[in-house]
C-alpha cells in the first residue's frame, strides 16, 4: 500500500464531513416512501359509476324482458354488462376528455372480467357441493363400498370408501417414488451442475409438456399390453408417477435455484462439505418452497383422471393390495358414474367430486400455510 491516496485531514477542509443530527428524525418519513395509490377516485366519481351500473341494470331488465324477450341469466348479464359500459362511457364523456373516457371504460371492463372469473370459480365450487349434498351426508358414504349395489339403491347404502382408499394408495405410491427422484434430480441440477445436468434439465423441462393421457397410454402399452400385467393400482400409480415426476423435478429445481448463493458459500467457507452444505443449509432454506412444490404436485396427481382411466380398471369393492387386479380411485369413480346417466348415480358422483375437491382444497391450504414466510425472518 502506498501513501498516495491517503485521505485528506479535516485541517484542509473547513466544513466538517460528518454531522451529528440534533433535531429528532421526522416522523413522516415512512409515508414519503410508500408508493402512492394511483387509483384514487373522488366520492362524486364513485357515485356516478355506481349510478351508471344501477341504471344499466334497470335498462337491461327492460330490454331483456319487455323489448326483446331474451330469456336466461346469461343474456341478462351480457346486456347489463354492455349497457353498463355504455353508461360509464356516457357519464364520463359528459364531463371528461377522451383519455378519461377510455380510462373509465377499460377500468370497468377489467373489473367486470374479474367479477366474471370470480363467479365462475365460485359457481364451480358451490355447484359441486350443492349437487353432492344429498349423497354426501351419510356416514355410510365414507365407510362402505359399492359392492353388489345397483344404480337405484338409496343413499343410505353403499359409499365410496373403495375410491378414497384407492386414490390414497395410488397417489401414495406415486409420491413415494417421485419425491426422492424428483428432489434428488433437482439437487443434482442446481448443486452439482455441469454438462450432464444441463442435458437432464432440458429433457425434464421438455417432458413437462407430456399430456397426462399420453403418460397413461405409455404405461398401458408397456405394462399392460407388452408385459401382460393386469390392470392394477400399481400400474395406475406408475402412470401418475410418470406424469408427476417432471412436474415435481422442475418445480423443486426452480425452488432450489432461488436459495441465495452466499448461504452456500458461507457454509463451504466454514469448511462444511458439499453434502453437509446441501443437507444443513440448502434444503432447510428451501423447505417451505419444496413442500409447496410437492403438495401442488400431489394435488395435481389426486385430481388427474386420464392416466388412471387407462391403467387401473374400476373395482366396485375395496382393494388394498395395489398389485392385486383392478382398483378404483376418486376421479375414475366420478367419471364412470357420471357416464352411467342414472340420476342417483350422478348424485353420488357429485358427492365423490365434493370429497375430491375438499381434499384438493385441504392440500392447497396446507401448501399455502407452509409457503408463508415465518414471522421474524423477514
Amino acid at each position, binding site marked *: 500500500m502506498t501513501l498516495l491516496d491517503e485521505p485528506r485531514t479535516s485541517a484542509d477542509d473547513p466544513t466538517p464531513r460528518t454531522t451529528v443530527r440534533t433535531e429528532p428524525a421526522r416522523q413522516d418519513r415512512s409515508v414519503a416512501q410508500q408508493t402512492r395509490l394511483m387509483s384514487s377516485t373522488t366520492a362524486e366519481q364513485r357515485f356516478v359509476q355506481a349510478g351508471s351500473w344501477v341504471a344499466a341494470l334497470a335498462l337491461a331488465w327492460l330490454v331483456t324482458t319487455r323489448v326483446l324477450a331474451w330469456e336466461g341469466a346469461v343474456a341478462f348479464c351480457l346486456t347489463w354488462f354492455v349497457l353498463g359500459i355504455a353508461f360509464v362511457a356516457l357519464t364520463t364523456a359528459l364531463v371528461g376528455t377522451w383519455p378519461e373516457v377510455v380510462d373509465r371504460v377499460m377500468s370497468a371492463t377489467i373489473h367486470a372480467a374479474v367479477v366474471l372469473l370470480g363467479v*365462475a370459480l365460485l359457481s364451480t365450487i358451490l355447484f359441486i357441493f350443492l349437487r353432492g349434498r344429498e349423497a354426501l351426508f351419510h356416514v355410510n358414504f365414507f365407510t362402505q363400498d359399492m359392492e353388489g349395489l345397483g344404480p337405484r339403491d338409496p343413499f343410505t347404502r353403499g359409499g365410496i370408501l373403495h375410491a378414497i382408499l384407492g386414490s390414497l394408495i395410488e397417489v401414495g405410491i406415486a409420491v413415494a417414488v417421485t419425491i426422492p427422484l424428483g428432489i434428488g434430480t433437482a439437487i443434482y441440477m442446481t448443486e452439482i451442475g455441469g454438462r450432464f445436468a444441463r442435458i437432464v434439465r432440458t*429433457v425434464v423441462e421438455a417432458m413437462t409438456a407430456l*399430456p397426462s393421457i399420453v403418460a397413461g397410454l405409455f404405461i398401458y402399452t408397456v405394462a399392460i399390453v407388452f408385459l401382460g400385467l393386469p390392470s392394477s393400482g400399481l400400474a395406475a400409480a406408475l402412470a401418475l408417477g410418470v406424469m408427476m415426476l417432471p412436474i415435481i423435478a422442475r418445480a423443486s429445481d426452480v425452488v432450489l435455484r432461488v436459495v441465495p448463493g452466499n448461504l452456500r458459500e458461507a457454509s463451504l467457507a466454514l469448511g462444511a*462439505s458439499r453434502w453437509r452444505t446441501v443437507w444443513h443449509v440448502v434444503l432447510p432454506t428451501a423447505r417451505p418452497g419444496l413442500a409447496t412444490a410437492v403438495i401442488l404436485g400431489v394435488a395435481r396427481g389426486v385430481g388427474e383422471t386420464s392416466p388412471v382411466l387407462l391403467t387401473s380398471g374400476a373395482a366396485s369393492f375395496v382393494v388394498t393390495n395395489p398389485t392385486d387386479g383392478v382398483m378404483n380411485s376418486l376421479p375414475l369413480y366420478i367419471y364412470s358414474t357420471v357416464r352411467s346417466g342414472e340420476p342417483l348415480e350422478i348424485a353420488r358422483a357429485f358427492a365423490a367430486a365434493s370429497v375430491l375437491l375438499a381434499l*384438493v382444497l385441504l392440500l392447497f391450504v396446507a401448501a399455502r400455510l407452509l409457503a408463508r414466510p415465518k414471522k421474524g425472518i423477514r
Partner: protein
Amino acid sequence: MQTVLRTEPPAHDVDHPRDIVVDLSGSDRAFVLTTRSIAATVLVITGGIGLFLAYSAVPTMNRYGLDFLTGTRWEPESDVLGIGSVLVGTLTVALVALVVAFPLSLMAALYIAEYAPPRLRGFLTSLVDLMAAVPSIVYGLWGFFLLQPHASKVAHWIHQHLGFIPFFRVDTDADAAVWDQSKYTASAFIAGLAVAMMVIPMACAVMRQVFGQTPAGEREAAFALGATHWGVVRTVVLPFGRGGIIGGTMLGLGRALGETIAVLLIISPSFDLKLKPLEIGTNTVSALIAGRFGEASETQLAALLAAGFVLFMITLLINTLAAVVVNRSRSGAGAEA
C-alpha cells in the same frame, strides 16, 4: 516502533495460486455419485418415454405415410387410420379456449398487478393458484351440468345473428319456432369453455408475475406526465410485459391441447372434418386415445401411440416457443415460466 517502508522490490519468487479444486472427501464423492445416478435414472425414465413414443410412431408412419396426419377417417375395420379431423378438432377446442381465456386472464392479471388494493393482492394470487389446482374432472362436471344449458343458448344466439359467417354455422334452422337445443350441445365450443377455466390460471400466473416486475420509475414517469391509469397500463405495463403475455398464453395453449377428461365428458365424438365449433360433435387427440384404447388391436394401439406422439410434439414445440419468448423479452429475465 515505526513502520518501515520497503524500498527494494520483493524477491522474484513466482506466486503459485493454490489449486482450488480440492479432492472430494469420501462422503462428498458418495453424494455426487448418488445424485448423479438419481438424475441419470430420471433422464432414462423421462427420455425413455419420449424415445419410446417416437419409436412406436415409426411403424404407423411407415404404414400410412402422411395420410395418417391428413386423413380424416378412423376406420380400423377397413385399415384406414387418419388423425386429420381429430387434429382439427383439437385445435378448434384449443382455439375456443384461448379466445375466451386470453382476454380474461390478461384482465385478471392486470387487475391483480395494477388495480387491486394492495391488501387483496396476496389473496387474489392464491385464488388464481387455487383455480389451477381444481381437478379437471370438476371443471368437466361444471361444464357439462351447469354451463351447457346456458352455453347452448349463447351458441344459438351466435348462430342466429352471426350465422352468415361459415365458422358459426350449425346444421339446423336457427330461426325455427322451436329450436333444436340438442344440436348446440356437446360441441367444441362448450368443451373449449371448460378448458378455458384450466388455461386461465396458468396464463394469468405468468402474466401477473411479469406485470409485477414493471419498473416503478417508468410507471411513475408516465403518471407524472399526466397519463391516466389506463394510459400507464397501455404505454408502460403492457409493452413491458409483452413477452410474459405471449409466453403465458402459449403455456396455456399447451395445457389446452393436452386436456382430456373435461373434453371427453362434454363432447360427443364424431369423425367428420369440420370447422363448426358451435355444432354438436367433435373429437380431440386425447379424447380419441381415451375413447379407443380399450378395443384397440396392435396396429390401432400403435396408431394411438403415434397420435399421442404427434400431440406431445405439438405441445413441446409450443412450450419451447413460450419459454424462448419469455426469456428473450425484457421482462422475462428473472421470471420462470
